[in-house]
């Protein structure tokens, strides 16, 4: 009797997991990541304030109350969340159609630029309300145009939208640099804030400044949620994203819908630009997008394209970012790299835990399989259970195209919506087929 080699690790797909359990796992992942981060920083920081100090600073990023009793950080957190959420929602509109709009940064920047241009040229010379209106129209239009161009090319020439939108980001970046240099030739390419045509605030202090932004975000989120769920346009978007052929069969003019949807997506980004310049900064700089176009992609995916979950995810991300900045400041760390490492670690844990939510790992340790063994005795076969991984893979490989389901269960590429391209179809532990 020869040795029987069994694969050490054996992965199967889970059927589904009760909501509370999945939530617990995610919360656990975050907690684990934070603990590791706390450990890392506590040990390496010049002015370490220990574990307690870590969490205190983390929360202070949002909940700090200063000497005057103001809670500026709280409003700033909400404001940042609002901006990030708006961008993410703008992207989701396109993502639902499987149009990978990676140009959020550029579209926001163009909105910023258009708004700043209105303020620069018309501020102080024309009546404020008129300028505000023009600012709004210009920002929204600029963002819309910036998304329209790649959309046209995709619709008519089937160009790759990821590359196109990505490249447009750089064009927008340099356009901003150009205009700032044009308006302020002396100096280091920085534009001072303009005092004319600033959008009104809704009250005193930081709350007053942040409230308009927050309200706009709430409105946008609600409106787009309804749009995607209940309107005919939304239905078409979902259909095209799911199966282009079926959409054509249903008689939908796919080109028209692509263009229409991208205009909306860009317009929303432009709106964010309007808020950034008109309401908050009153000037434009080449980094004004704050990389929200990319962070927004993460919010969209982690939020599973659901506006409600996305709100929570944005809040979490902003809370984390601000909290880590506060931690670094309090712990005397003046090198941003460490803060980025920690945030990256937390994302890694969060995304990684999705794997354990979707799959179950079985270990065949010391000859005993984790599934019940057959009843009859084994004649003399040595179970060499040491981890000879042989060809058994530990993780599902990248799924092949058109991964077929076993006809038995028909549970095809069973994914919770929206079927992210990375983790689907891994029902089999290996996808190798015979040569």
């Amino acid at each position, binding site marked *: 009797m020869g040795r029987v080699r069994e694969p050490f690790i054996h992965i199967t797909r889970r059927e589904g997991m009760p909501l509370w359990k999945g939530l617990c796992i995610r919360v656990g992942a975050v907690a684990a990541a934070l603990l590791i981060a706390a450990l890392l920083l506590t040990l390496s920081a010049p002015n370490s304030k220990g574990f307690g100090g870590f969490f205190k600073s983390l929360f202070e990023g949002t909940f700090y109350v200063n000497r005057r009793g103001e809670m500026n950080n709280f409003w700033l957190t909400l404001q940042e969340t609002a901006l990030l959420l708006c961008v993410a929602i703008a992207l989701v509109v396109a993502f639902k159609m499987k149009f990978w709009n990676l140009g959020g940064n550029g579209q926001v920047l163009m909105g910023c630029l258009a708004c700043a241009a209105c303020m620069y040229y018309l501020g102080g010379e024309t009546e404020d309300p008129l300028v505000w209106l023009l600012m709004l129209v210009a920002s929204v239009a600029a963002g819309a145009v910036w998304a329209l161009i790649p959309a046209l090319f995709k619709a008519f020439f089937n160009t790759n939208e990821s590359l196109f939108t990505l490249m447009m980001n750089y064009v927008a970046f340099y356009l901003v640099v150009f205009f700032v240099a044009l308006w302020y030739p002396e100096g280091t390419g920085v534009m001072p804030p303009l005092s004319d045509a600033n959008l009104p605030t809704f009250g005193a202090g930081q709350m007053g400044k942040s409230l308009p932004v927050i309200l706009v975000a709430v409105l946008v989120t609600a409106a787009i949620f309804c749009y995607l769920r209940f309107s005919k346009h939304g239905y078409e978007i979902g259909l095209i994203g799911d199966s282009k052929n079926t959409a054509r069969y249903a008689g939908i003019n796919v080109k028209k819908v692509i263009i229409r949807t991208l205009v909306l997506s860009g317009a929303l980004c432009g709106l964010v630009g309007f808020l950034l310049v008109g309401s908050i900064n009153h000037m434009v700089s080449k980094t004004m997008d704050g990389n929200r176009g990319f962070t927004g992609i993460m919010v969209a995916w982690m939020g599973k394209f659901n506006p409600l979950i996305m709100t929570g995810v944005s809040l979490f991300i902003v809370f984390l970012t601000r909290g880590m900045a506060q931690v670094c*400041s309090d712990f005397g760390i*003046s090198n941003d790299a460490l803060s980025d490492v920690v945030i990256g670690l937390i994302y890694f844990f969060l995304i990684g835990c999705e794997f354990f939510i979707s799959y179950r790992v079985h270990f065949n340790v010391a000859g005993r399989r984790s599934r019940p063994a057959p009843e009859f005795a084994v004649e003399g076969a040595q179970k060499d259970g040491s981890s000879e991984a042989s060809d058994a893979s530990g993780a599902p490989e990248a799924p092949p195209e058109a991964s077929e389901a076993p006809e038995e269960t028909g549970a095809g590429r069973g994914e919770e919506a929206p079927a992210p391209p990375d983790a689907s179809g891994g029902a089999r532990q290996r996808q190798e087929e015979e040569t």
Partner: protein
Amino acid sequence: MKKKWMAMGLAAAMTVAGVAALAGCTPADDEITVGFIALHDDNSTYDKNFLDAIREACANKGIDDDHLIIYTNVPEENDCYDKAVDLAGRCDVVFADSFGHEPFILAAAKEFPEVQFCHATGTMAHTEGVANHHNAFAHIYEGRYLAGVAAGMKLVEMHEAGELEAANYDADGNIKIGYVGAYPYAEVVSGYTSFFLGAQSVVEEETDISVSMEVTYTSSWFDEAAERESANNLMSRGAALISQHADSMGAPSACEVKDVPNVSYNGSTANACPNTYIISSRINWVPYFEYMIDCVMNGEEIAADWTGTLANGAVALTEVGAAAAEGTAEKIEEVKAQLMAGTLHVFDCSKFTVNGEHITEYMADVDTDEGYEKDTQVIENGVFMESKYRSAPYFDLRIDGITELNAD
């Protein structure tokens, strides 16, 4: 199932509330707290210069880590205002280190009259008249001049030893040097002009030829690739020596590769470029910070425009490199004494010409305004009085002998 949700929800709420309460408690104490806003972080030599200085100054004054709050990577946008307001709620004095921070610092200063706001490289303190808003800079041009002197010494040594090639001399037989600048405005122009004048003084004194300089702009304070490219370009055009006003190691490393002497800024590159490092000038901010802290501690007024000098140590030179010419250190001491005594002026109008003529009067743009109006007469007694009417430089004349290769 519902119970689980409730339990988790309560736990979460309690944690948040508890920590918020904890966070809200700020211990009231009598020690002063210093706040600092940096454009980048320790990875940038520019900010590192400031950060090291503030830490040293606080240590000298007995301010512990808990009373020094540093925010890094604060962009020149409204975020700066938010951070300034945040610091104003915790600190007695707030400092920001980059030009573009100024409007936001100013706005915060107006809102928090009891907190002092200090700003480096800024220009608005003397015009806006906000009592708790102050600018600071240094007569760095003097440091540059001295660095130029060291460069001149090296050039003379190379010239007399016959180490220079034909390409290193321009059409008039003057030695060519190169300068990598960032932006074509006063701060940079002032810097390279004073450097040039320092080199010129030595070369003309020791030999019968002069120097000429070519300048390129990279349009960025920190762009390693562009700075390296520029340095290589200048060297291929025949520069016998390179200096720069940029924050990365692009230019010095390019010089090290080509074995061309390099005069650095803001820090010694001796470790990275042992064969070519001559000297470096920098602003030592410790004197200013100590001054600033003292004023706050004693309740005194901080100067609206504080300009550091050689005398108070704000303008400093790093050590003389192994590649420098013999006698450099002594020469520098000699010139330094002259500058401090006032017998030698850097921007002596008789030592340079603009379009072939020595200038006798010049209106400089000292007060910041949109039209860049030239408003102040700055030449007195045949000397261009740099950094007198405000701390940030305003020398923006292009003198003869210096060619800009890519002025915008």
